[in-house]
């Protein structure tokens, strides 16, 4: 089984940090395959994509999970459309600082439009919301963020990705949500 997970969110929200930290942790535990591939500009901003493959085995079912980021900068919108193609689940990385409130919202709206173009409805798609940078003094209260950035009422994780906090929890939740969305049988108990 091959799954594609894309981390999206505003510029500098911490998508790349999440994916790099996740790679380091999974690599150390023997759950990442091959290398970490990154295409960055000279200023260490994501130009196209960062990605790696994680290999998991659930009850004897082999899963290769390709984890990718989208570039956050608005000028790179066409590339975001390309990366989101064929995605199985999304992680919405939200910058907790109050100053980034508007831009977080704009990115959510833009992503919904990209998915719609590809025949999906963001509100009925496996998503996990990650509230990153919880250590900032200007971090918004979780209740306010839930109202604004979690219209799915889906799982959310509080994180400080740069320290690795919440990174693994986010990954576990998105895999769970994808599997439930793809293979859930609501009739069974």
């Amino acid at each position, binding site marked *: 089984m091959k799954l*594609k997970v894309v981390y999206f969110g505003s510029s500098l929200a911490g998508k790349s940090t999440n994916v790099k930290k996740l790679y380091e942790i999974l690599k150390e535990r023997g759950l990442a395959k091959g290398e970490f591939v990154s295409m960055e500009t000279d200023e260490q901003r994501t130009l196209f*994509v960062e990605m790696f493959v994680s290999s998991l085995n659930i009850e004897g079912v082999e899963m290769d999970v*390709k984890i990718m980021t989208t570039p956050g900068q608005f000028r790179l919108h066409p590339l975001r459309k*390309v990366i989101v193609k064929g995605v199985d689940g999304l992680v919405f990385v939200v910058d907790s600082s109050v100053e980034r409130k508007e831009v977080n919202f704009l990115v959510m709206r833009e992503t919904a439009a990209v998915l719609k173009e590809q025949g999906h409805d963001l509100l009925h798609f496996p998503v996990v919301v990650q509230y990153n940078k919880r250590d900032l003094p200007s971090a918004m209260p979780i209740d306010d963020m839930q109202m604004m950035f979690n219209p799915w009422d889906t799982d959310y994780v509080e994180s400080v990705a740069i320290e690795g906090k919440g990174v693994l929890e986010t990954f576990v939740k998105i895999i*769970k949500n994808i599997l439930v969305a793809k293979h859930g*049988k609501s009739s069974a108990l």
Partner: protein
Amino acid sequence: MELDLVEYELDQDTKAKLDEVLKNLFSKTSAELVILADDAGRIISLKGKRIDEDRAEFIASLISGMFGAAAEMSKMLSVEELDILQFEGKKVDVVIKAIKPRFLIGIMVDKGVALGSVRLFLRDASQELEEIFSSVKLVPVKTVKVDVKSLEEKLSKLVGL
């Protein structure tokens, strides 16, 4: 609630047919690498001289990314739908072609190989692949029942949380 984790695969006959087309293309063009993937960059089949599977996964993603980016540019410039993308390096040339309904084939050849003939063989191969895909069947290879409540626990344990 309980999940049926079903792992689907192409049936053996289809797989063999796809492999055969790739094998022929690989030998006729003396390619370094031939990858067949879906448009999201998931590998379906590959033939290569010096390539490991992990690296091929990334190359497949980049093939899908590059083709997708070029297709976006075509749309913005209002030119016709992109069917083939080609770029030339110092030592190798790369050609990527769309295969209906939603697949891509990428081929990497040494500079010494004539690109005209590569494109010709690629066109023939793509027609064969499209025929195969038009009658494709997916077969479930494994079904596992997992309780949703314990799924998160199992995943957490697996990653060492």
